[in-house]
């Protein structure tokens, strides 16, 4: 007896339909076989299905069972086929009709219950697009799938409950989507208010947030680089609906949505350690997985101790930094992951970290400092718009007023300006397929950043004096554009340009 149970396979962010064909032959020696380019996790599904069905008090049929995952030439991975295979076998034992326009996905436990499985959200998107009406997924994965409107998502606790439903004895109620706000760590660990001093750095972070610019902070240990970076999410605008879908898709593919999780509405703040592997950071592996740069999509990728990252990783980041996505090619498949993130890097100025420190002495010689600073790849530095030096703050020298955080601007207040500046940009770039000033190419700069004569004169003078490269010249215009947007004016003035020059690329040599 042949039964077809529809399910899906996720190749990167793409989803294709997979038919799980289960055949229970009445002739032949009893056995259990899975064919159709299944990986180890799928092959092991035999044991889980057999034990789970027995645990529900149903005798596992002593027949020759063959499962085919069609199309047979697409590699299938993961534990999501446990449920469709079990449903196929149960259907032939219990003799129930397969529900129409339904998709199944889920990993089984030995006791017959279902476990949280990755990819439910991607399957829901696929279902919506191709007209499937019912989704049967584990209870813990049901909420994320229900984020897609117009389909019924049935949360399944165990096989017994499901067979009752399919035998129409006791129905399972479709899940009602609810946004989960608890358990989500607050996006910002610090409020900008808590950062004492660092006026210029805070301003630079604000500009970076407003224009989506990459930023690098160079300063001694303990000067507050990490604190500033971690305060950044608090001034970023929330994700809009399309962005939230994009981010949730990547998280679903990576299996990073927690059990019971919902749509990702916060901008991500990813802070991988510098010992992270290249596939872990950029994405890849034999079956390409999204890396940290994709998980930071539309959010912030914070690379602390930037010079400690291997050269290979820095170079690999160049293309995604430029294009906003990453293509991973394998002989059998090609996967595209979006990776449009804001890079926030921090570095020490020298190996000992105390170059130009007001109190401590640097013990490095110039040669060591040169070598250390050369570790950051030039092309990467070229793609970073804002460069700031962070000096340690001695709060004992502050007056009581300066120490009183009540007088400082809160993240909320800064966020309002950032949101307004971003709105200005999305309006400007409506028809340009970009969404922030940082993404402007030369044609956009020509179109949207017309410089008055005096402004251009200042920039020319500065590029001679500070020896700015051609690329830096363009970066200064982009940053000035963002500063003008923060001021809510269309024209870039001399003042905007002069401020932008503060964040020009510098060498942090002991000079």
């Amino acid at each position: 007896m042949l039964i077809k149970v529809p399910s899906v396979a996720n190749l990167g962010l793409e989803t294709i339909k997979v038919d799980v064909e289960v055949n229970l032959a009445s002739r032949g020696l009893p056995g259990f076989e899975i064919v159709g380019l299944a990986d180890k996790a799928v092959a092991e599904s035999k044991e889980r299905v057999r034990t789970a069905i027995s645990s529900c008090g149903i005798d596992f049929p002593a027949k020759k069972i063959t499962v085919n995952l069609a199309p047979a030439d697409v590699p299938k991975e993961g534990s999501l086929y446990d449920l469709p295979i079990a449903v196929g076998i149960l259907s032939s034992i219990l003799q129930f009709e397969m529900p129409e326009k339904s998709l199944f996905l889920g990993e089984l436990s030995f006791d017959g219950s279902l476990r949280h499985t990755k990819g439910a959200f991607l399957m829901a998107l696929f279902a919506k697009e191709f007209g499937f009406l019912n989704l049967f997924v584990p209870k813990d994965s049901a909420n994320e799938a229900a984020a897609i409107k117009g389909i019924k998502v049935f949360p399944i606790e165990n096989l017994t409950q499901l067979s009752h439903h399919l035998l129409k004895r006791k129905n399972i109620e479709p899940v009602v989507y609810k946004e989960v706000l608890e358990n989500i760590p607050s996006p910002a660990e610090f409020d900008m208010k808590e950062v004492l001093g660092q006026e210029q750095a805070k301003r630079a972070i604000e500009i970076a947030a407003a224009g989506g610019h990459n930023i690098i902070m160079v300063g001694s240990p303990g000067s507050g680089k990490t604190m500033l970076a971690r305060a950044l999410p608090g001034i970023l605008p929330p994700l809009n609906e399309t962005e939230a879908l994009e981010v949730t898709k990547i998280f679903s593919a990576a299996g990073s949505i927690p059990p019971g999780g919902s749509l990702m509405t916060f901008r991500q703040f990813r802070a991988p350690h510098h010992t992270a592997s290249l596939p872990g950071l950029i994405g890849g592996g034999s079956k390409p997985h999204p890396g940290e740069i994709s998980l930071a999509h539309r959010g912030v990728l914070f690379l602390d101790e930037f010079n400690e990252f291997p050269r290979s990783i820095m170079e690999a980041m160049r293309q995604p930094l430029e294009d906003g996505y990453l293509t991973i090619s394998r002989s059998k498949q090609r996967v595209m992951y979006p990776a449009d993130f804001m890079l926030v890097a921090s570095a020490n100025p020298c190996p000992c970290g105390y170059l130009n420190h007001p109190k401590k002495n640097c013990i490095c010689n110039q040669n060591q400092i040169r070598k250390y600073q050369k570790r950051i790849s030039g092309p990467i530095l070229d793609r970073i718009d804002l460069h700031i030096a962070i000096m340690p703050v001695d709060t004992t020298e502050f007056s009581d007023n300066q120490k009183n955080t009540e007088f400082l601007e809160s993240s909320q207040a800064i966020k309002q300006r950032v949101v307004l500046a971003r709105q200005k940009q999305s309006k400007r770039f409506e028809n340009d397929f970009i969404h922030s000033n940082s993404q402007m190419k030369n044609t956009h700069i020509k179109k949207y950043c017309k410089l008055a004569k005096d402004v251009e004169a200042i920039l020319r003078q500065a590029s001679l004096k500070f020896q700015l490269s051609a690329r830096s010249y363009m970066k200064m215009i982009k940053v000035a554009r963002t500063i003008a947007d923060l001021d809510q004016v269309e024209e870039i003035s001399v003042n905007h340009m002069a401020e932008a020059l503060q964040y020009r690329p510098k060498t942090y040599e002991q000079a």
Partner: protein
Amino acid sequence: MAQVVEITDKKYPKLLKEIGSLAPKKLYYKGNWPALSHAEGSDEIFENCLAVVGSRRLTSYGRRATEQLITEIAAAGVTIVSGFMFGGDEAAHSAAVKAGGKTIAVMPCGINIIHPEYQKNLYNEILENNGLIISEYEGNFLPQTWSFVQRDRIVAGLSKAVLVTEASLNSGSLITASYAKKFGRKVFSVPGQIFSEVSKGTIKLIKEGAEVVAEAKDILKFYKILINPEVKGRPTSRVMSDVPKTGTLEEKIIDWLKREPMEADAIARALCVSAAKIGTTLSLMQLKGFINQDAGKYYVE
């Protein structure tokens, strides 16, 4: 390419010969060696030599001091002798080259080697400006720990006086200074802050009787050179009308910076002005040339 001068040659520097048994038997060199060392005439490269040495970890203060002093001294015709190391030596050589003065680099390695190699541009500039590269080692001899110290005796030996810009207590600059004392040459020292590690050596020299240098005049007097009013290189005085009017933000900033170099943040706090505004003003002032920035701090030009 490299040529050699023997101690028996007439053109061997007279002052260097005076150090007796320590004088190198042979000197390899690159550049235009003058025909006769004891020929009369003020244009002689070995006539008025000043050794300028300083810490490899020169601070921004040390660099500014070196630039200011050496620009004037080199422009007045004194030859700047140093050891081509990065930091203090490099600052002295490049200030001399920029001022259009003469400079001699004494290498701790074979004459065919440039050490440190990344200072190649400076090396070429020295030669282009009629300077000399000297070494007592031939060929591709690599620098050794001891050869740096040996090099110091030639630096001191060539010069009538030694100027130490910045030095920590275990700095090689102090070795050069002690050679100078041994050879009976004058020692000058630039005073620094008592907290700075690289001022401890210079302060020690002052305690031991070195002469304090606060301006180029202090050294030029020793060389009996009248101060040349026209100094090539950086302009020293500014037309008064350029200086911002009293009471403006620019004026207030200059007031603060005259006391000590400050970071943008500290200026913003002192004047209670937003970081955006202070950044804008500082950029504009820097472009106008009122102030300059070094190691994160702004100072008045």
